[in-house]
């Protein structure tokens, strides 16, 4: 039996937006842990606070209150420059709903970009990029420009780019939101494969129970709070999981 090791722990996270004299609570006292090699899914309807949580985890937005621990150590001011960039570069990989690839670059250049920004040596850049492209099945198309690929292929490139620096945590914001159902399955299976092969920890935000079914644990968000949690059993098939998640969703 593998020992459970916490990669990420958040404690008492709050996010308040002030609009005039009014205060809007996007997140209220959120706590949870993400373990090594685990997929945690954050579910909720629009405006429930799930994307805000992801942005705060990625250092893209600042929390009003709360603490974050990476590998058991608290990280302070991780959302302030220049720490934010360092924090993202060392710990976080991002996958967006709209892929956000740079069209000026080829597939392999897009994947290599985080390594270039990290000033890695040419040999490391080449080796890691090619390995990652082989892993996501796009090595043969490495010299194509990103706009020449299908949506699913572009999202694969985005996954490869997010994981090429071996980050502790992969944050995926509605990664299948722009894809058809078949392609969505392919991307989700790719994420599961990455989890297994690389022991990757993943936080995935979605509103789709079928997508959430790929998670090991599911947190249900409502009005900025975690209102429910679902722990998936390894042997339960995806269809069953989906139904149970839907039930939990109705219940919360």
């Amino acid at each position, binding site marked *: 039996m593998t020992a459970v090791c916490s990669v990420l722990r958040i404690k008492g996270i709050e996010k308040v937006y002030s609009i005039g004299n009014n205060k809007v609570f996007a997140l209220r006292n959120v706590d949870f842990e993400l373990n090594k090699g685990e997929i945690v899914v954050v579910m909720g309807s629009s405006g429930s606070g799930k994307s805000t949580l992801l942005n705060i985890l990625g250092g*893209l937005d600042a929390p009003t209150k709360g603490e974050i621990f990476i590998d058991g150590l608290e990280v302070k001011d991780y959302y302030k*420059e220049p720490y934010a960039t360092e924090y993202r570069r060392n710990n976080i990989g991002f996958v967006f709903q709209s892929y956000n690839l740079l069209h*000026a670059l080829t597939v392999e250049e897009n994947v290599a970009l985080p390594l*270039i*920004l990290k000033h890695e040596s*040419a040999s490391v850049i080449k080796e890691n990029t090619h390995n990652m492209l082989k892993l996501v099945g796009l090595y043969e198309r490495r010299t194509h420009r990103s706009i020449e690929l299908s949506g699913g292929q572009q999202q694969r490139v985005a996954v490869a780019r997010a994981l090429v620096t071996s980050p502790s945590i992969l944050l995926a914001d509605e990664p299948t939101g722009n894809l058809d159902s078949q392609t969505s399955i392919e991307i989700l299976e790719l994420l599961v494969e990455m989890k297994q092969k690389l022991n990757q920890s993943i936080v995935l935000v979605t509103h789709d129970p079928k997508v959430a079914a790929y998670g090991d644990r599911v947190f249900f968000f409502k009005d900025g709070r975690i209102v429910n949690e679902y722990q998936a059993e390894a042997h339960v098939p995806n269809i069953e999981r989906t139904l149970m998640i839907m039930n939990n969703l109705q219940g919360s």
Partner: protein
Amino acid sequence: MIISFSGLSRKFIIANKIRITLSVIAVALAVGLIVSISMLFDNMEQSFKNVVRITNGETDLMVGFNVATQRYLNDTQIKEIQKVNNIEKTSMLLINPQIGMDQSTKTSSLAKSIYTIGTDNSILAKDRYKIDKRIGQDEVVISHTLAENLNTKEFEEVKIDLPGVKPRVWKVVGIIPNPKGMVLPNMAIFNLNSLQKWFGLENKINLMLIKTMPNANQKNMSLNLKTIDKDLRVDILEESEEVQKNILQIEVIGYGLGFLAVIISVLFIITNFRLFIYEYQRELAIMRAIGGTVSQSFRLILTQNIFIVLCGTILGLCLAFSCSILLSNFLAVLFKISNIEVQFNWGRILLICCIGAVSILLFLHLPALKSAKILPLQAIRENEQIDFQPNSMHKWVSVTSAIIGIILFLSGRFIGEAGIRALTAVSGGIFFIIGIFFGFTYIVKPLMIFLLPLWELIGGRVAFVAVKNIINQTRQNTLVILSLAGAVTIAVTGLTILETVKTSSINNVYKEYVSDIILTSSYHTASNLKYDFKKTIDEIDGVKEALPMSWGDTGKITFRKNSNKAGVPDRIGYIFADLSALSRLGFLPPLEGETRNMIILTKEYAETLDLNVGDEIKVVRNEFGYNGEGTTLKVAAIVDALPATLSSKICLVDWDNKDLQTKYTVLEKVIIEIDKSKEVEVIKGLNELKAQYPEVQWKGLKEALEELTQLLKQRYTLLSIAIAIIVLISTFGTVTTLNSYIQAHRREYAILRAIGVTPRQLFVVILTQSALYSIIGVFIGIIASVIISYAIVTGLEVKPAFNWLMILYIVAGIIGLSLMLALPLARRISKKSVTEELISIAR
């Protein structure tokens, strides 16, 4: 595959080639415009200064006594002059020693007209009088005119007769040719010692030429020199009124157009670069999200900006260089003028380029730096905001600039010296334009809403959609329209200035050539033609009237009746004229009674002397040794301008007023009215007269205008080149701006296609938007150019002349070219696959 950060920068440049190219072109046009204007105006100013150099040689100051006073500089005075600070070298001269000598009737007219110089053979003197050899004891150098009148050639011996001395034989060692377009007077230049001996004036000089140190304050030196003796006369050669006026004109035009060039350059760059940085923010945001630091974003932008500015500056320099060379040659051929040499002051040009490049770089970098600093999420959010709200600073700048502009413009009209007034007026105009441009943000939306129904009426539903679609894009609309307006402003202003210079020169010719023929003397003030010469002309068959006018003379006002204002000058300048005849022929208002004691003034001069119609003054003529009581003059009329006279600081008195005339009162010109049917006879008669009086020359209005046209072509070719470049670059700027605009909206066009707009309709949409921008831009540009032209020409103290036909051509050219560019681009974009466009430009 790129594996380095610099490779990444390179890749971005290659991948964004259209955007980069447009930005490079914008920078090139801006640099080209500023360099061309600076270079050409520098050349113009230098060419005017060169004319002074050619005329005066290296001499900067002349100091001496008036020859009529027969005073000479003594050794102490010479030493004191030489001791004055900032004098590099001096030269000793004896000028016209015959003046004041016995002018007996035995002496010939020619002898009396000779301008005599004794020179110490110094470089300064040789340079001033264009002598290329040393003049020995018995030698003389004479002007071409004198050589003709004495019927002699170089190396021949000639007997020269001067008043007050015995005639002597001299060897002609040089003949000074007439400069182009000028006739030199009868001039004889001798060795200083020889001339002194001939006149018995050993060791005596009455004039010194001075070359000052570079950057010396000549005005201060002049004041210092005058303290040596109160009668010393000091002339600063560069400060002749005409040269000063011309240089001031060029400076005013140069500053005005220069400022406009900077404004339009900024607009070109903002408009084109805005698109670049706007698109680029998305890329920066992604890079920041995946681990790029602020400094990496900064470096990436810096690399690209340096590339853009470097390429743009080099291209701009080439553009300015080739435009000037090519256009100079083209205009030289077109106007049949030789020797247009555009000098490139490379040091200065490179300095301008460097300052320009660094300024543009900083200018480009500020918004980019802001983008680099913000959090990735904010960058993406901001990028989604298409519209912007005009902020209070714009309003503040707009109102303040307009108010400052009006104040400066008005003070430019009334307060200070001419030079200061001109610059104040120009600054006023520029501030006002800045006010309009900043304030435009507030009117662009209502203006477009106002034009919407009209546009729908002309172009139908598609045109309506096209305009409706852009109404809310205030920032883009403002920038594109102002960019176009700036181009039109600078082109029309340039053209108006050229037209104004031309028209005011032609008006001067019309003012001077009021009759069919004007007769003058090539001997100028040394002319032998007196009032009686009128009778000789009257005898010519076909001459209806001959009206002689004298050279200007001066007198002192010793008494005033009805006017006692303090500080009014007591010197008065006058010309003798036939007042009753001028009045009878309509050149002056009707004059009643005896004209002998009448005086006619211009409004300006009447104000200066504080005189009104009916006022009486007593004037004593200004003649050495004259002790008479003078004569009483009564102001008979005050007119706008005196006939055939350009100066407004002079008045007319009657030939019958003998009290004011001296023995030196000679004719400057004779206004001749002829019987048109007998023109041939008159010309024949005048030709016969010339055989008898070699100094006589005449011109009609036609000849004067032809001569002026030639002079204008020569003098203002550089201005024409500058304006041609401005028009050319402005038009290209307009075209580039519209191109940028269309490129920036390809995604919108694709969306329009996707929701049912046919390729043909899209074609109409693009053309409609281009036409709308061009028309509003042209409209605003013309208003702005009228204001700035008024400001510039007010400074030049002339009325602006708008060549509306040419302006129409330019405007039609700019709109036509813009549409011509939009046409193929619109066709290409309308034919593109919708999905391809959406994907390739997808955010």
